[in-house]
C-alpha cells in the first residue's frame, strides 16, 4: 500500500496511538505499585478473580491474528475456514481441567518449565525450552511486525515508528506492572475488542444482507460455501491441534493457571474459551461480504480493514485501528511477561542464583522483559517478510508437546523416554511433513507421531511417578 490510499489520516493515527499508549502505561504504573516481590510481579499474588481471569484468558488468545487473520482465513477458506479458526477456542476450553490439576499438583509452581524439569528431568526440560522459546520469540516477532505493517497500512504511520511505539508501550507497562498490569489491561482490551467487532459486524449487515452475501459467494466464489472444500477441511483439526499445543505448553497459560485464585482457574479458562469462540466468525464474515459490497482486495491481509472502511468510512477506520492496537497489546504484553518469568525462574533462579531474594528476582524479571523487547525490536527493524511465516513451523513442535503434557499430568506411568521421544520424533516428522506435504498437515502429523510414541512408552513402562515430587517448595 502507498500513502495515497491509507484509510486514516496519519494525524488521527498518531493521536490514537498517543492516547492509548498513555492509557496503558498509566495503568501499568498504577497497578505496578502493589507488586513487592517476584511472586506479586510474575503471578499477581496468586489471587486473580473470575472476571479478570476469564477476560485475560480470552484477551491473550485474541491476537492480531484473530482480528486480522480471521477475515483472511474466511476469504481463502470460506465458511469452513471461519469455523476452523474458531476451533482454536478448544485450546482454552480443554486447558480448563488441566489448570485445576496443575494448581493442585504444583501449589508452589511458577512456570511450565518447572513442570518439565520436575516431571521428566533435565533433557526433556532442555527440549521443551528450545521448542517454547522458538515458538514464543517467533510469535512475539510476528506480532510486532504485524503491528508495524498494519499501522502503516491503516494510517500511513512509518513501519519502524509504529512497531517501535507498540513494543515500547508494552515493554514499559509490563516492566512496571508485571502480570497485574497485563491482566488489568487485558480486561479493558477484551471489552473494547468485542464491542468493536459487534458494532462493526452489525454495521456491515446494515449495508448488505447475509442472503446477498451468500448469493454472491455461490455465483463468484463457489468453493467458499462448499461443504467438501479439501484445503478447508484439512485446516479444521490442524488448527485445533495447533491451538491445543500452543495453550498446553506455553508459560503464558501456565503462569495464569498459577496466578488465578484457588478454584477460579478452570472456570476462567472455560469462560475465556467460550468468550473467544464466536470471535473468528464475527470478525471473519465481513471478508465474505467483500464481493457483495464490491470491495476489490489487492492483498488478502487487508480485506478486513478495506471492507470496514468502505462501509463505515473514517469511523470504521478508527474502530479497526483501536481493535488492532488492543489485540496486539493484549498478546504482546502477556508474551513478554510469561517469557521473562520463564527465563527468570527456569534459568536465572534454578541455574545461576538459587539464593536470589524475591526483590532481586523481580528486578531481574524487569530487565529480561526490557531485553526481550529490545531483541524483538532489533529483529523487526529490517522487516524481513518471511520471518512472520516462521511462526507456522512451530505448529508441529507445539503439537508434539500435547501428549507428554496431558499424560504427564494424569498418568503416573508416563515417563521421560516417552516425553523426549515424543517431542523429538513428533516435532521432527511433523516438520518434514510441513515441507514435503504442506502446512495443513504438519500439526496433525506431529501430534499423531508423538501420541503413538508417548502411549507406547507409557504402556511398556514399569515406572510409577510420585506426584509429591512436583510439590517442590518455592
Amino acid at each position, binding site marked *: 500500500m502507498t500513502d495515497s490510499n491509507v484509510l486514516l489520516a496519519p494525524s488521527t493515527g498518531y493521536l490514537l496511538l498517543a492516547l492509548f499508549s498513555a492509557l496503558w502505561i498509566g495503568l501499568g504504573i498504577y497497578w505496578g505499585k502493589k507488586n513487592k516481590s517476584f511472586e506479586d510481579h510474575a503471578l499477581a499474588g496468586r489471587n486473580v478473580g473470575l472476571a479478570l481471569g476469564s477476560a485475560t484468558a480470552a484477551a491473550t488468545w485474541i491476537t492480531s491474528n484473530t482480528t486480522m487473520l480471521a477475515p483472511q482465513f474466511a476469504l481463502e477458506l470460506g465458511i469452513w475456514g471461519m469455523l476452523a479458526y474458531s476451533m482454536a477456542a478448544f485450546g482454552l476450553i480443554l486447558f480448563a481441567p488441566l489448570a485445576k490439576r496443575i494448581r493442585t499438583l504444583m501449589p508452589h509452581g511458577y512456570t511450565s518449565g518447572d513442570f518439565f524439569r520436575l516431571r521428566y528431568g533435565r533433557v526433556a526440560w532442555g527440549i521443551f525450552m528450545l521448542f517454547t522459546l522458538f515458538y514464543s520469540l517467533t510469535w512475539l516477532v510476528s506480532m510486532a511486525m504485524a503491528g508495524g505493517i498494519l499501522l502503516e497500512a491503516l494510517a500511513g504511520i512509518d513501519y519502524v515508528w509504529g512497531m517501535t511505539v507498540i513494543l515500547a508501550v508494552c515493554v514499559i507497562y509490563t516492566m512496571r506492572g508485571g502480570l497485574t498490569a497485563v491482566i488489568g489491561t487485558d480486561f479493558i482490551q477484551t471489552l473494547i475488542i468485542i464491542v468493536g467487532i459487534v458494532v462493526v459486524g452489525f454495521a456491515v449487515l446494515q449495508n448488505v444482507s447475509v442472503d446477498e452475501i451468500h448469493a454472491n459467494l455461490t455465483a463468484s466464489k463457489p468453493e467458499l460455501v462448499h461443504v467438501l472444500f479439501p484445503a478447508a477441511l484439512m485446516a479444521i*483439526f490442524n488448527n*485445533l491441534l495447533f491451538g491445543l499445543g500452543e495453550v498446553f505448553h506455553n508459560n503464558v497459560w501456565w503462569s495464569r493457571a498459577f496466578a488465578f485464585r484457588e478454584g477460579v482457574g478452570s472456570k476462567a479458562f472455560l469462560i475465556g474459551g467460550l468468550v473467544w469462540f464466536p470471535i473468528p466468525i464475527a470478525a471473519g464474515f465481513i471478508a465474505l461480504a467483500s464481493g457483495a459490497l464490491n470491495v476489490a482486495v489487492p492483498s488478502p491481509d487487508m480485506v478486513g480493514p478495506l471492507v470496514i472502511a468502505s462501509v463505515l468510512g473514517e469511523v470504521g477506520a478508527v474502530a479497526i485501528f483501536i481493535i488492532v492496537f488492543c489485540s496486539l497489546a493484549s498478546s504482546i504484553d502477556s508474551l513478554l511477561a510469561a517469557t521473562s518469568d520463564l527465563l527468570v525462574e527456569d534459568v536465572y533462579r534454578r541455574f545461576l542464583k538459587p539464593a536470589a531474594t524475591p526483590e532481586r528476582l523481580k528486578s531481574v524479571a524487569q530487565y529480561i522483559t526490557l531485553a526481550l523487547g529490545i531483541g524483538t525490536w532489533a529483529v523487526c527493524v529490517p522487516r524481513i517478510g518471511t520471518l512472520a511465516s516462521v511462526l507456522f513451523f512451530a505448529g508441529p513442535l507445539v503439537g508434539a508437546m500435547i501428549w507428554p503434557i496431558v499424560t504427564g499430568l494424569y498418568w*503416573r506411568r508416563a515417563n521421560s523416554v516417552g516425553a523426549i521421544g515424543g517431542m523429538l520424533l513428533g516435532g521432527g516428522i511433523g516438520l518434514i511433513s510441513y515441507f514435503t506435504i504442506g502446512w495443513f498437515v504438519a500439526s496433525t502429523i506431529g501430534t499423531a507421531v508423538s501420541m503413538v510414541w508417548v502411549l507406547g512408552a507409557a504402556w511398556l513402562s514399569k515406572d510409577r511417578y510420585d506426584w509429591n515430587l512436583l510439590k517442590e517448595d518455592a
Partner: protein
Amino acid sequence: MSILPGAAHAEAPSFTNGGEYSSDTGHVLLSWEADQRVTLSIAQDPDMSDARTLYSGTQTSYFLSGLSDGEYRLHLEGENGEVSEPAILTVAHQSLAQALWLTLIGLIITAGIIATIVRGARDD
C-alpha cells in the same frame, strides 16, 4: 499519473509472472504492470464469451479466491483499449480423499486427548 488522456503510447498492461498461475486451494494473488486504469475480467470459455468483470481501477494486484476446479482465462484491458496477453489460471483442488483421511486422524487424536483429560488421574 502523468499520462495524457488517450495517450497512444501507453503500453498494454501485462501480468507480472508471465501469465501462468496454478492453485490447489482455489485462491491466488494476481498482479500486473500497467500505467493506466485497467479492467480485469475472468472467463472459462477460450473465446471469453462468458467473461465477467472482476475489477476496474488503478490497483496493480487483485486477490481471487473460492474458485472451483477448472481452467480460467484472465485478461486486462487498459482504458484506451489495449488488451493484455491472457493469463491462464489452473485450479486443481487437493485430493478430497486425503483431506477426509486427515480430518479423521485429527478427530481420533482430539477424541483421545479429550478422553484422557476427562478420565483424569489414574492411580496405577
